[in-house]
């Protein structure tokens, strides 16, 4: 690594750490209904939305009603995106005259964007019209992220409220997080991106003459507006197939820096919001530290693996699958961030990562997307691990386990286990299914452990609602579209519903005041314990699968065998 690259990594984390309390504090004001910066600007439209939708913002519901609203809203989104794709040829804004999408690909994409996964079995510029990209996908980019925040808000209320039956109003939480957080950030960010050269138009595709005299079609479109929210909302679904490796999506080192920062910005800031809203900023920082440490360890291993001399080719560092514009450090920083944060956008091909950095990407995902993770989703996933840690280790202080004064009892443990079990089940079972059936194996481009990694990565990405692909796997088949689609649904709602149930159950409990006998969850000891729990639970579940994929591949590579 060169000095400038080291400096850039340091700058990246300095910005991340610096922006966390700023944005976090702002969001806590927005979500607690306090006065804030943008209330005078957008306040009228919030009122208007409630009026049009005939929502009473002061009416609070219990967790079951909340869950019902959330599921209905998401289901409608799914139907909408699914149908738009099936009839896009008759819809406007289709200058490339793209035909209707196959039902299984449309279903997969609809699920993918509704669940904030943004797995893309298709390539944007040759499959979807501007209309579908804007009305279908971009809308879901906003509301799927807002849904994640809403679930987190319910959990916060469940933890911080004393003996309460209600947990807020889904429509209010959804509106506020979209209107005051995601929309303003995206507007500012897309303008900056346009300034850097990201395209934003409704023109027809350009045809250019290359130097060799060949004809090349250059796709256009309203990219900047979608890319802003794609990064900020941990969506990751690229406007173009090459995602942020495409020069129209990510033209300059500066845009690259901002896009990377945007991946982690909101999930990181939410930890501060969390601390603020549960009444102790330290709690938020402890969780932030855990996430940061896990991210840095992963980043360190990845950088080491990418810069290490490849024993097969004998060359220092490997540039295969990377943009020369970005180089190794920026590619690895991106690949680590995007897998940690459940974003899934890429600026390099993960399939070409060395086995160890590929494994770091997989581990980031299979640990449950809790290292910053998706907007809202990462934090509520992390709190599931907090609950498990508190339950196991909390007993060791000689008290029934409690978190922030709330008892952790059978129901919470049951739901927390379900939330851990749901994505793990998807990954383990579907990987097994795909690796022994012809439908699964026939899509592979690579043999041996690398092929296995491709399958394992695909289902991990789906279940973790990450959306990035290891590539090398043709996933646009009926088998993969359907199994991955199912995996995304289970991975999303198999966690959301238990989390909402925990929130509902905890809200009704009393709060035991802290004392010297209380198990503290805001110090380094706890941070260490939480890291250990995440690594041990995740590690024990996936160690065999990782052994047969990247670990074996790494060991073989050292012997000079590649796939």
């Amino acid at each position: 690594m060169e000095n400038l690259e080291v400096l850039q990594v340091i700058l990246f984390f300095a910005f991340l750490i610096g922006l966390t309390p700023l944005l976090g504090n702002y969001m806590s004001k927005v979500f607690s209904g306090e006065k804030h910066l943008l209330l005078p600007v957008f306040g009228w439209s919030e009122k208007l939305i409630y009026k049009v939708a005939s929502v009473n913002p002061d009416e609070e519901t219990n967790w079951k009603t909340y869950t019902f609203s959330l599921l209905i809203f998401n289901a409608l989104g799914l139907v909408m995106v699914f149908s738009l794709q099936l009839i896009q040829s008759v819809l406007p804004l289709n200058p490339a005259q793209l035909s209707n999408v196959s039902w299984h690909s449309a279903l997969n994409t609809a699920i993918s964007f509704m669940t904030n996964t943004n797995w893309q079995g298709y390539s944007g510029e040759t499959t979807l019209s501007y209309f579908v990209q804007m009305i279908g996908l971009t809308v879901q980019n906003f509301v799927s992220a807002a849904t994640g925040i809403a679930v987190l808000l319910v959990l916060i209320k469940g933890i911080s409220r004393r003996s309460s039956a209600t947990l807020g109003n889904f429509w209010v939480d959804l509106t506020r997080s979209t209107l005051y957080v995601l929309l303003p950030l995206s507007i500012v960010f897309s303008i900056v991106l346009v300034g850097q050269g990201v395209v934003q138009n409704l023109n027809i595709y350009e045809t250019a003459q290359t130097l060799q005299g060949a004809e090349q079609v250059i796709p256009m479109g309203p990219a900047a507006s979608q890319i802003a929210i794609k990064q900020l909302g941990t969506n990751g679904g690229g406007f173009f197939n090459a995602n942020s490796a495409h020069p129209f999506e990510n033209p300059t080192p500066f845009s690259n820096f901002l896009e990377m920062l945007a991946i982690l910005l909101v999930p990181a800031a939410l930890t501060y919001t969390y601390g603020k809203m549960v009444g102790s900023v330290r709690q938020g920082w402890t969780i932030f530290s855990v996430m940061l440490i896990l991210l840095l360890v992963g980043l360190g291993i990845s950088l080491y693996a990418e810069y290490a001399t490849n024993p097969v080719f004998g060359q220092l560092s490997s540039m295969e699958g990377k943009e020369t514009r970005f180089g190794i450090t920026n590619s690895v920083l991106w690949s680590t961030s995007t897998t940690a944060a459940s974003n899934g956008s890429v600026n390099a091909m993960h399939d070409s990562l060395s086995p160890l950095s590929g494994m770091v990407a997989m581990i980031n995902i299979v640990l449950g997307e809790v290292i910053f993770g998706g907007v809202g989703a990462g934090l509520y996933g992390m709190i599931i691990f907090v609950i498990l840690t508190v339950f196991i280790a909390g007993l060791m202080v000689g008290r029934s386990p409690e978190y922030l004064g709330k008892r952790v009892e059978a129901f919470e443990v049951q739901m927390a286990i379900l939330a851990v079990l749901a994505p793990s089940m998807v990954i383990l079972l579907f990987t097994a299914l795909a690796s022994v059936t012809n439908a699964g194996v026939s899509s592979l481009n690579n043999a041996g452990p690398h092929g296995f990694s491709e399958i394992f990565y695909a289902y991990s990405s789906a279940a973790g609602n990450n959306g990035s692909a290891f590539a090398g796997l043709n996933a646009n088949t009926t088998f993969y579209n359907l199994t991955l689609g199912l995996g995304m649904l289970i991975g999303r709602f198999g966690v959301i519903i238990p989390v909402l149930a925990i929130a509902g159950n905890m809200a009704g409990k009393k709060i035991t005041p802290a004392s010297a006998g209380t198990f503290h969850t805001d110090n380094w000891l706890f941070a260490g314990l939480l890291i250990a729990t995440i690594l041990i639970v995740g590690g024990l579940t996936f160690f065999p699968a990782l052994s047969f994929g990247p670990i074996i591949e790494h060991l073989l590579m050292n012997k000079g065998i590649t796939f």
Partner: protein
Amino acid sequence: MSTKQNTSLFNQKLLVQAAIASFIKLNPLTLIKNPVIFMVGIGSVLTTLTVISGLFSGNFSSFNFQIAIWLWFTVLFANFSEAIAEGRGKAQAESLRKNRTQTLARRLVGNREETVSALELRKGDVVICEAGDVIPSDGEVVEGIASVDESAITGESAPVIRESGGDRSAVTGGTKVISDRILIKITSEPGDTFIDRMIALVEGAKRQKTPNEIALSILLSGLSIIFLLAVVTLPAYFGYSLTASGLPSSQNLTIPVLIALLVCLIPTTIGGLLSAIGISGMDRLLQRNVIATSGRAVEAAGDVDVLLLDKTGTITLGNRMATEFFPSDGVRIADMAHAAQLASLSDETPEGRSIVVLAKAKFGWRGHDIHQRNAVFIPFTAQTKMSGVDLTDVKGTVRQIRKGSAEAIRSFVQNSNGFFPKKMEEKVAELARMGATPLVVAEDNQVLGIIQLKDIVKGGIKQRFAQLRTMGIRTVMITGDNALTAAAIAAEAGVDDFMAEATPEDKLRRIREEQANGHLVGMIGDGTNDAPALAQADIGIAMNSGTQAAREAGNMVDLDSNPTKLIEVVEVGKQLLMTRGALTTFSIANDVAKYFAIIPAIAISLYAGKDGIGPLSALNVMHLGSSESAILSAVIFNALVIILLVPLALKGVRYKPMSANNALMQNLLIYGLGGIIAPFVGIKIIDVVINLFA
């Protein structure tokens, strides 16, 4: 402590009984109550079937056979731990029961007395007990007063007073009347006395899982399901890798190997020991002569963060004691002390005796001096509130020495035309304000001085409360004294808070308030009017000497009737929860090493070069001898660790009062870090031994 006799950890009889019971517990209906061990049971059956079918098809595998044996041992060891805990509980209960002999009762029918067996007594019968009689059943004294030897149940040799009415009316079957005569109304049916019911609970006959145990079982079952998924998907991954390595699919993992891996991963250690830990928690209370009505209560004891403690008996010694003499102007202190002693010789109350003792300690006055004089003792009565002595010297003049309350002495001196000095009045008021009890000594019409009586705070209690504070437990002193007195004692004893002039209703209200604020409250009480508070408290310990109402209301009974027991009960509760957490952590941490033993062992052939050793053997960090010995060592370690940890499960982890953070740190080091390292060492040793014999 009579019940301590059977508490040696293992005696031979217990061991044999437990060993037999571990086979009886193989019954699937019993086994299914413990999902983790049930899973091992199914694995054992499947492996055994594989071995048998191998036997018939002529390819008997000694490896599979050994796996099967050790899997069965895993189940048996888990059963054994539960059986031995139950056995110890039974032994404990037996020793309680043995003391209750088959006695004869003198039943009163009308005015007639008839002798019947104690077993025939029904609720409502009235029996007579006189000195030397064994009380036939639980009951309430309806007439008379007697001293009763309760050592049979409490182990305490000093007799206690039982009398009709009031808070000391309950008597327990099996105890012995040693003086006087009482009429007892029987309050329970035979075999269903209070103690009978509690013993049944202790024996585990009615044992139910506690809330925390249920939550932990869910966690363990959940983890088991995750590991089950990891293991059932393994043949698919393995099959893919075999194909990729160009190996035949017939080399895929066998059922015994998969089951071995599964059993090593699922939390069998804590799963196997969980019920033993719960039972032994109640057992440890019993060793302290406290009977808990449920395991739930023991668990709640660990959570209590507010203790309501009665001042008398818990914080202070039972009675007030003389601590100082304050003479009037012009009176020598030695003379005053002498007079005070003389006046107290006939006062048999503890206060009176303490004055004699103080005079003796300070000035060496001895009571026997009095015999040389012509003395008439005036004993203390409730009416006069004075005691004293009239001394007649050789000339026939009579000295009247009196000691008593300020009011009594004032009228005494005024009757003889004396007066109560202003300065002494002030001193009396001052002492009362400070929480002491002033007694005044007078001779004839002259006030000699004031004796200060004070509550004596028990030695070491201040340190005890400081310990409780570090554990995060707040102490509240309950007293009938006025606020000033209470504050002075509270400060001296170092309690966090006090309630002065507390009525039973105040106590109940206080408990409700604390609970509304999220606290869990523990208290100890004995009187009938304590019953509502005992019932309301999260931990209500009734003293065995208390009324039946109090005993029914609480969720624990202290057979020793010792109010400081509350603190020990809290410690037992904490220790129970800690043991559970520590062994859970240990059990999960163990898995890391097992993976490193088993994965390289099963995957050795994958992508192998010409030497037949695949790349994953790099993970064989323990350098285990062979694939088979590696798997076998992991399984054996997994089984043995259960039996090795049985003593820890029964005794509980070492417990010292300390803050939550320190406790966590200590337990993490031992059971977390230890849990990761121990199996690496253990599996390696077992592997070396196996390869010695192979």
